Structures are given as C-alpha cells and as structure tokens.
C-alpha cells in the first residue's frame, strides 16, 4: 500500500488503545486513511471495528467507562484535545448507523435538522439544501411530492437513504457508516452501495461491514480486525486475493468468523 504524505491523510489513528472499563477493545492500532477513498472495516463481531469507527467522531464519549490512549487525527488536528468542540467535529463528520434511525418527524424536518440546530433560519437556503441532499442520496424522486410525510412511513431502505441525506445536509467531508445495509433487503442494499460509489467523489467514507462481498465491491482499502488488533490493512484487491496474514485469509474464505 502506498505511503501517504501528511497532506493526504484525512483520518489517522496513532498508537490507539481503547478500553471499556477494564476491558481493552482496541490494541495499539495505527492507521491512516486517504481522502476520497472508501475504507472498509471487517472482522468478527466484537473485534472492535465499530468502536474504532466511533472514535473518529467521538461517539464513544457516551459509553460508560470509555477511555483511550493515543491520538486520533482528523484533517491534521487531534480531535480529543480539550479545546475541540465535539459539536463542530460532528458537523464535519457525518454518521450513518446500523439501523435506520430517522427522527419521528417529517422527511423535510429530518434533513433540515442539522441546519436548524446550527441556527440557520434562511428558508430558501434550507429548502435548497434539503432538495440537494435528497438528490445526493438518490431519494428525491421517491419523496419529492410528500416531503411533509412522516419519515417513519418510509420503507427501511428509504429510511436509510434519508439518514444519509440528513448527514449530507451538513456538507461533511467524511462519512462514517456503521453497517449501513445490514438491516436492509438486497435491493435496498445495492442502492446504498451504488450511492456509496457515487459519494466517493466528494467524501471520505469509512464503512463497517459484516458482508465480505460488500467490502470487496465497494471499498478501495480494507482493514481486518480481530480481537482488538488491526491484523491487516491494505488495498482491498490485495486483501481479498493475496492477504499476507493467514488469519485474514481464514476469515475471508469463511473458515472462521
């Protein structure tokens, strides 16, 4: 894998150890992620990949007993420094969760929420942003006539694309996705995957997935985690055809997991 210059590093973890209480969930992880790429995190349940993903927007701060050593660098800045405001950080780093979690409000309000909490009142700007975001998440055609409808009346796949639109409305540069398609049917899944491919042009995407084929299809680079260790991190092609570690090979071919 090519060495990244400091300028190319969008996200970076340096000597990262994460603990929940006494339990260590990430062990000395070092990783740099290049801008405008899709990086997939794979590994068996409980290997720490979701925890790792959430260190980048500090969503672990709410987990009881969370403690970390080492640094997380986003755009050249250590995001765990005291002076960093998490609210600002999260505007820059959108997140999509495993289960679609739209707010129990209208479609429009869901997408406009990010602007609203920033205190933006300009109606025209909000309307434009909502439309643009829904276009980007390939949902516009399906919902343009009933933006006032409750988001909960949408199908699971539509809800997930709404959650993506909601994240995009803040114009982040990074998108974290925690198994975004695991609760969806195959057709919705393929829509989400197409979408990720499109979004790569503008965003740096990190995606946790349990689906090996999915990682193979959509990602440029893949990181394999096992029991809190980053076992192997390389170009997806390489990981899937010729991994260096035997453990990676075994996981990918389905011999354990």
């Amino acid at each position, binding site marked *: 894998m090519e060495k990244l210059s400091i300028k190319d590093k969008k996200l970076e973890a340096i000597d990262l150890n994460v603990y929940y209480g006494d339990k260590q969930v990430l062990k000395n992880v070092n990783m740099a992620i290049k801008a405008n790429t899709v990086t997939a995190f794979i590994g068996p349940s409980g290997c720490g990949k979701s925890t790792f993903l959430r260190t980048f*927007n500090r*969503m672990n701060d*709410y987990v*009881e007993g969370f403690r970390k050593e080492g640094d997380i660098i986003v755009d050249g800045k250590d995001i765990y420094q005291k002076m960093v405001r*998490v*609210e*600002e*950080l*999260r*505007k820059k780093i*959108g*997140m999509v*969760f495993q*289960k679609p*979690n*739209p*707010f*129990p*409000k209208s479609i429009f309000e869901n997408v406009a*929420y*990010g602007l*609203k*909490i*920033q205190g933006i009142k300009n109606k025209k700007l909000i309307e434009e942003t909502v439309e643009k975001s829904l276009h980007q998440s390939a949902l516009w055609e399906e919902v343009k006539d009933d933006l006032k409808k409750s988001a*909960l009346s949408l199908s699971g796949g539509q809800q997930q694309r709404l*959650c993506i639109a*909601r*994240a995009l409305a*803040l114009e982040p540069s990074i998108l974290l996705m925690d198994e975004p398609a695991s609760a969806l049917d195959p057709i919705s899944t393929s829509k989400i995957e197409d979408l990720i491919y499109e979004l790569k042009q503008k965003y740096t995407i990190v995606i946790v997935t349990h689906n090996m084929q999915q990682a193979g299809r959509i990602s440029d680079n893949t990181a394999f985690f096992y029991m809190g260790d980053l076992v192997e991190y390389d170009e997806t092609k390489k990981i899937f055809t010729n991994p260096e570690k035997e453990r990676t090979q075994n996981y990918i071919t389905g011999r354990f997991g």
Partner: protein
Amino acid sequence: MTNSEKNRIKDKAFQWFGITCTIIGLLVLAIFIGDIIAEGFARIDWKFLTSYPSKKPEKAGLYSAMMGTLWMLGLTAIIAIPLGIGAGIYFEEYAKKSRMANILEINLANLAGVPSIIYGLLGLEIFVRSMGMGTSLLAGACTLSLLILPIIIVSTREALRAVPNSIRQASYGMGANTWQTIWHQILPASMGGILTGIILSLSRAIGETAPLIVTGALAYVAFVPETPMDQYTVMPMQIFNWISRPQHGFQVNAAAGIIILLCITFLLNGIAVFLRNRWQKKVKW
C-alpha cells in the same frame, strides 16, 4: 388423566380465578358509585354548585370548595410541573452514574411512598411556619407539589427512557448538543408520556385531604380566594366536613360533593388516556 388434560384444567381454572378477581374489584366500585349516586345525584343543581356553605344543608353549596380546588390545582401545576420535568430530564439525560445520583434516586423512590400526612407536617413546618406563608393557598400548593413531585419525576423519566437511544445518537451524531437533542427530539417524542404522568399526579392532588388539613385548609369558607395568599378550602375538605355532621341533609350534600369530585377525577384521567393514545399513534418506532 393425562398430563396435557391436567394442564388444560389448570389453565382454565386460573382463567376463572382471574375473572373472579376482576369482577370482585369492579363490583365493589360499582356498588360504591351506585350508592353515592342514589343518595346525592338529585341534590346536584346549579344552585348547589354556586352557593357558599351554610348552616342549613338545603342551602349549602360547593362553590367556595370548588373554587379553592381550582386554585389549588392551578398553583400546584405551576409549581410542580416545571420542577418535576426538570428533575426528570436531569436524572435521565444529564446525571452520570455516581454515588450522589444513586442516593438521590433511592430517596426519590422513597419519597413516592411517604404517607401524605407526613408531607402535611413537612409543609406545616417549612412553608406555613419557617417561610411564613401562613395557612394560605400557596402553602397548601407547595405541600401538594412536594407530594406529587416524585410521581411526575418518575413518569417523566419513564417517558424519556421510552425514547430509543438511536434517536439520541442520531441527534448527537449530527452535532447537536445535549440540550438541542432534548428540546428538538426527546421532549416532543416523549410528550405523551410526560403529560399522562402530570395529569394523573394532578388528579391525585385534588383528592388529597390530609396534608391540607395539617397546613390549615379551613372547614367553613364563605368566600372565594382572590390571591395565592388567601385562605381557602377544597372539595375533599368540604366533603369531610359535611360527612362528619349528624343531619341527613349534610350526608346528601357530601354524596353530591363526592359525585362532582369523582367526575373531575374521571375527566382528568380520561384526558390522560386520550393524550396517551393520541401521541402513541403519532410516534411509532
């Protein structure tokens, strides 16, 4: 007899046991209400509702007691609702798990079980005497607020807890702070539960007599309170006063008063059920 037959009989038996228990409870309530209606219903007319108490039972009315109850309800609501919701939000959304929070929580659970007369004594010492409110509406309302605070706090917490964590995560994930998350997402989604708790606690408050006897509600009031510092009586006090008199006429008045008190309570509970159903339909996870 085979095992499955035995089980079937057991199942049936328990079903009948359950039905019997239900019927006994309902029957007692029905007899009670029927008896009260038979005695007092004919006594209820406009004059009964708009007259002050009197020495003559047929002239006596519920006006000052009803007005007192309205005042009491309003003041108690103004005091208890913001305090209760605020404390509930603090416990559920802000408080980190600590020994202090634990102690507060245990105390809260205990408070909900304290007999109401004890609250009365507390109110007498703190509000009536120390704070110098005297035997006013305000002192009574403060006491009743203490009494229903635990109920409001607990029901607020339950309503907040019913909002799935995924909503909080979604909101935090978009850069909202805790207050924005609470205000824009958690409160609207839990409003049904919170309102239900508030109404049920208020309907408990209007039936309370003991704490108000202690904090100085009057038994005979021939005026309507005009400020929170005025003296007062409330409906249960008036009913209690009538019922303790020997003349049959006053017994009838008491029954009529009970019917009206019950009507108000049922009305409040009805509103609570209506709100709950309405909000539940609106918010489905």
